[in-house]
């Protein structure tokens, strides 16, 4: 038995192996240039002081975590964190509830459901920068009647971004929910109907438990998307309005984490680059944690099936 396992696919393996340079070479080279080297260098630089990367000087042992301490002490960074977290949670709830409702409606064999699906998914094709400008035009068109603008009040910026992202993401999540809903076994629904279950009972007791995997995937996706958001944030408000705190620190009230890292880097401060890179590492740990939790979850599901 064991010997048989060993010989499986050996012919292919042996003959393919020496073609390493052709099959793996280009991807490995690009992967090192485009990911591995920048990643390692990024971690290293988060412990350095530098203006240009080639002149980077490691921080002394007594101050090894200086960049990280500066990052955590930076009021604009903590503000961006809470702002991002709040945005991510609100958008997660709204997008998923609405997307599920639309998907549920579209699987009720309604006429023209294909047209509806086409229209709802369409905003996904438009890039974040362009989306941001389309909506800033619309919001300013409305708000100018009240002689204000989306960049003048942070609550407009927040809800504006939520509306924009709902418009973009509902269609995306809807597609995943439709796939999940179509996979609910017909005989289970039939059984519920015969047993006299009402429509809402069927929905909450049969349908929703069956699409739980889709719900989890969509929740993770909207959470990580929310944390990583950059283009739409930049194009809609770019962090405006800005307030100055008593201590003299400026806080961009609608700035999210990704944008905060970006703007920190172009600060003129001598420690700006190092601090920005430390923020990027913190950001990476946060986002990767969410992503790995999702992967682990989907893996577990695959094993169960």
């Amino acid at each position, binding site marked *: 038995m064991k010997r048989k396992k060993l010989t499986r*696919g050996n012919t292919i393996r042996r*003959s393919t192996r020496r073609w390493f340079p052709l099959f793996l070479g280009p991807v490995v080279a*690009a992967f090192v240039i*485009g990911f591995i080297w920048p990643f390692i260098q990024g971690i290293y630089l988060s412990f350095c002081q530098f203006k240009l990367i080639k002149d980077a000087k490691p921080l002394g042992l007594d101050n090894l975590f200086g960049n990280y301490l500066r990052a955590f002490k930076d009021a604009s960074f903590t503000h961006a964190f809470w702002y991002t977290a709040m945005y991510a949670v609100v958008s997660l709830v709204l997008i998923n509830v609405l997307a599920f409702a639309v998907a549920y409606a579209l699987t009720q064999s309604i006429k023209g459901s294909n047209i509806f699906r086409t229209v709802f998914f*369409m905003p996904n094709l438009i890039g974040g920068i362009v989306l941001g400008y389309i*909506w800033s035009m619309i919001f300013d068109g409305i708000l100018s009647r009240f002689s204000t603008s989306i960049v003048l009040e942070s609550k407009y910026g927040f809800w504006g971004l939520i509306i924009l992202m709902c418009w973009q993401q509902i269609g995306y999540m809807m597609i995943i929910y439709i796939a999940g809903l179509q996979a609910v076994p017909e005989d289970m629904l039939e059984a519920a109907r015969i047993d006299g279950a009402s429509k809402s009972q069927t929905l909450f007791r049969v349908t929703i438990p069956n699409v739980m995997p889709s719900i989890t995937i969509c929740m993770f996706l909207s959470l990580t998307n929310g944390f990583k958001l950059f283009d739409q944030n930049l194009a809609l408000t770019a962090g405006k309005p800005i307030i100055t705190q008593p201590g003299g620190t400026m806080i961009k009230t609608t700035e999210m984490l990704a944008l905060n890292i970006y703007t920190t880097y172009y600060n003129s401060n001598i420690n700006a680059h190092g601090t920005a890179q430390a923020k990027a590492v913190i950001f990476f740990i946060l986002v990767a944690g969410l992503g790995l939790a999702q992967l682990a979850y989907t893996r577990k599901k695959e094993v169960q099936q």
Partner: protein
Amino acid sequence: MKGLASERRNKMILSIILSVICIIYVLPVLAVLINSFKLNTFVKTDTFAIPLPGSEMWAGVDNFVKGMTFGEYPFWDSVKYSVIITVLSTALILVGTSMAAWYIARVNSLFCKILYFLCVFSMVVPFQMVMFTLSNTADQLKLNTPWTIPVVYLGFGAGLAIFMFVGFVKSIPLEIEEAAAIDGCGPVRTFFMVVVPMLKPTMISVGILEIMWVWNDYLLPYLVLDLEKYRTITIHIQYLKGSYGTVDLGATTALILLSIIPVIVFYLTCQKHIIKGVAAGAVKG
């Protein structure tokens, strides 16, 4: 009987609600359409008014004509570079990662396992983590032109593509390739003549995801490209609205319209593949 009638009525109501949402959904695109024909000064004050030909708001095609050259950068150049970058990057990613994924799945040595692990890992790393160092490295290696930036896209985008391809290759029965080998087919021919045709559905899914990513990407080309010479459409639009004090809203809106027309045409023609590809990428990623 009564239940059936009420069921039908419920479906009618549902259809009407969905139609209303549908119209609301299209409105932002319509707003872009009407404002691209409106004189600059009216875009902000009368955003939702329809500019009838001959009315005081009507700008005709002036916005489009002005949009071609304004912002000190020719719009058509940015279209050209967007197309070049998207086509080259997608082609390079499809060829490179499908070959690598087949090798990884079939040879499965320790090195392959490590590489595969790193690919999965790279999928959860946000771009901000590597953006400064990546743009610096790309600059040094002269990867800052539309013809060389695909290497950066291959490097940073390899993760998801390899993940999707490996998943599919593992589901292909080995016997087919073994039969080809027995018939005297070398690995290169086996891959291109036997494996690639079977990979076609995954190729389409991956291709769609990459096209959507690269075409709409802003920060990566913005940091990597030599902006004096090369700009993509997205960068061009960001420059127009971002850094100039007096923005010509009419002309910018006209350019936004021009930039979303190809996207919508692409979507309407390959809709089925796009939705399938996106769903595949989401569930696995």
